[in-house]
């Protein structure tokens, strides 16, 4: 294997690790904010403690997010120097704005954490969360717009290899940006909801009947359900977007070879060597409907796309994983909400709670699958239509070595994070803290 391959793997590795912490980083502040607000509004210690405990776990994740984020920021230039040299002239603006947004978030998160009980009016402390939430969402917006640009570059012209007529704002607000940003944000909130829900469900499954966990579960499931719906709707728009701007990605995701109307959606299945689909579940007309909102619309197939521009067909599986988990979680949260409302007894069954515990990790898996789908789906391009991945990569000979070293470091980080987080909450159970809180409050540390 050469440097190009290893550069791709190392980038994939760093981003796959980073996206775990980035998703938590964007999503969780919303829930800290909701809990803190409910706590202040109803003068409910449970919610206040919830905000505090979530915030404490959140800091650990932010810390690892910061370092993996720094890693990917630097690796972009180390592994893709020619790409950054070229694209740096076009996307420097959102990249730069992202650091501002992140700076903003970092500052106010620090202040929030160390000012519990330092303000006379507790609302002032609560307001500190607004810049944290905004900063997280804005940095997601800016960085996703860079990624969107790589998918649908615009805002410049090429004349004999020279860039002319550059419009940074146009480059930022490229066609892929609105759906991508919306999908990233809503899926981050959705994933954060299920992650926090699994923690609560875990305590319930272990026999802890404290009201605190029930409140946490009810809150996260409600919000989670809303974001499931939002994510699905935006996902539908993303499909329509793909059909128009990146038909090769959609066609590869659906193993759709012949350009035809009345196109079906394929779920699961395997692809034989001569591109025949076997064992798949076929939903007739669904792809046409997804793309054109009518049952007979024509969908471009892979056979009409030059062979060397085909993405790897494996992305079909990632697409399936993402969509199935999305639908599964929507149903799960819906059943839970109806069940609570109607007092159905089976939502208290161990089996159902087991699904609730699994929901967080599954949502995170869907995030990973979604990113693998979208990123591999634009192979062979690093900047669609302008630069292939091979042209953008470094020609340094030591990328393989760095891959091994980083794999090792990320492994340590992940294990460390898991150990520290579990230890932190195990040693300091909620009940103990609640008792202390009724005495007097102290800083988070």
């Amino acid at each position: 294997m050469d440097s190009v391959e290893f550069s791709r793997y190392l980038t994939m590795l760093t981003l796959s690790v980073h996206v775990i912490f980035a998703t938590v980083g964007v999503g969780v502040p919303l829930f800290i904010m909701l809990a803190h607000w409910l706590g202040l509004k109803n003068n409910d210690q449970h919610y206040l403690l919830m905000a505090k405990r979530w915030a404490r776990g959140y800091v650990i994740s932010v810390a690892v997010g910061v370092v993996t984020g720094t890693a990917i920021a630097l690796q972009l230039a180390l592994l893709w120097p020619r790409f950054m040299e070229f694209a740096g002239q076009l996307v420097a603006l959102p990249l730069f704005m992202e650091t501002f947004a992140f700076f903003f978030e970092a500052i106010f998160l620090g202040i929030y954490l160390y000012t519990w009980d330092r303000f006379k009016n507790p609302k002032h402390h609560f307001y500190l969360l607004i810049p944290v939430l905004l900063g997280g969402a804005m940095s997601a917006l800016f960085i996703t717009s860079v990624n969107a640009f790589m998918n649908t570059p615009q805002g410049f012209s090429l004349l004999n290899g020279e860039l002319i007529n550059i419009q940074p704002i146009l480059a930022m607000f490229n066609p892929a940006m609105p759906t991508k940003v919306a999908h990233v944000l809503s899926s981050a909130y959705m994933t954060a909801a299920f992650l926090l829900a699994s923690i609560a469900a875990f305590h319930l499954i272990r026999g802890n009947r404290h009201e605190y966990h029930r409140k946490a579960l009810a809150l996260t499931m409600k919000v989670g359900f809303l974001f499931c719906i939002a994510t699905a709707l935006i996902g539908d728009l993303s499909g329509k977007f793909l059909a128009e701007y990146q038909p090769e990605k959609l066609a590869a995701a659906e193993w759709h070879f012949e350009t035809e109307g009345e196109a079906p959606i394929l779920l699961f299945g395997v692809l034989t060597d001569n591109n025949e689909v076997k064992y798949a579940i076929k939903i007739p007309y669904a792809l046409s409907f997804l793309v054109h909102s009518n049952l007979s619309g024509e969908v471009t197939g892979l056979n009409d796309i030059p062979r060397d521009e085909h993405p790897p067909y494996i992305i079909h599986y990632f697409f399936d994983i993402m969509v199935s988990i999305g639908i599964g979680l929507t149903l799960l949260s819906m059943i839970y909400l109806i069940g609570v409302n109607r007092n159905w007894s089976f939502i208290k069954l161990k089996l159902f709670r087991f699904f609730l515990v699994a929901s967080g990790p599954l949502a995170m898996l869907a995030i990973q699958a979604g990113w693998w789908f979208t990123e591999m789906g634009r192979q062979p391009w690093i900047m669609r239509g302008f630069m292939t991945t091979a042209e953008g990569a470094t020609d340094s000979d030591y990328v393989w070595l760095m891959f091994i070293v980083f794999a090792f470091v990320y492994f340590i980080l992940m294990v460390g994070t898991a150990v520290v987080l579990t230890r932190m909450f195990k040693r300091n159970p909620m009940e103990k803290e609640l008792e202390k809180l009724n005495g007097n409050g102290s800083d988070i540390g």
Partner: protein
Amino acid sequence: MTIEILGISVLWLFLFGYVIVASIDFGAGFFNASTIVTNKHHIVNSVIQRYLSPVWEITNVFLVFFFVGMIGFFPKTAYYFGTVLLIPISISIILLALRGSYYAFSTYGSKGHKGYTLMYGVTGVLIPASLTTALIVSQGGYIKELPSGKIELDYLTLFTSPFSWSIVLLSLVSVLFISASFLAYYSAVAEDKEALKLFKKYTWIWSFPTIITAFGIIIEMKWHNIAHYEGLLSLWWLFALSLVCFIISLLLLKRGRYGWSFVFVVLQFALAFYAYGVSRYPYLLYPYLTIYDGFTNETMAKALVIVFILGLLLLIPSLYLVFKLFIMNKPYIQNKKG
């Protein structure tokens, strides 16, 4: 002033910001760890934790800021530095990753874990050394051009050059000097007499090596890059001013005016840092890249400057708030419970 010079000045400012805040941070980590070994940890622990906890993530952002700005204003640097510095900068990334996460683990996770604290200290010394590689390479003379047209870092020359080792040495001693000076001030505000005494001592210990290596490097430059050496000499008065600030800071330290002493330390470094920066003009990477041939297009440059100003309007009040709440806030600093 052309927009290229404006661009590089902005970046130089970020880099200087990083040098100061990161020095305080790296040095604090080092002192924190070394006092574990010397059994003086109980003296400094509280002061260091009080300062570090709310601000540690801000430090990293300065670095990313500089870096992203560099690629924004000078996209060609991505090619040269990116290709050449894969290994040294990857090492820095790894050290930064371990350092950041282990800090969080020990502060928010298992408090007072000695392994984490030692790791935090050791990486704090290694990071400046590995980051300095970028600065050394930009001086020129360490890049090999292969027959295939590829460029590569010449590790042998790099590791055997006394010049590059002097720069590493300078970065190490100045980190400890800046940090000790700041922590002396901070413990003075905290009215923590024992910590103050210790940090005052550290400031004295690390002050002279800093100034000696700095002058050593200027002299070595004569053999390394004569054009740059002459550039440095033509700015002799700025370096002289820097030396004056150094002397004033030590006098103030002796008189117990720790805040002002630290201000003069910052001034001393600012003068030397800017004089050094100006003396390199117009090279980003000698002799391959100047600030003119590596510059981004006009439209992007203007957009970046506008965003930069808007961003500062947001950042300065926020940083002021941090300052007011944690660094200048007596009740916070003195509060021993935590």
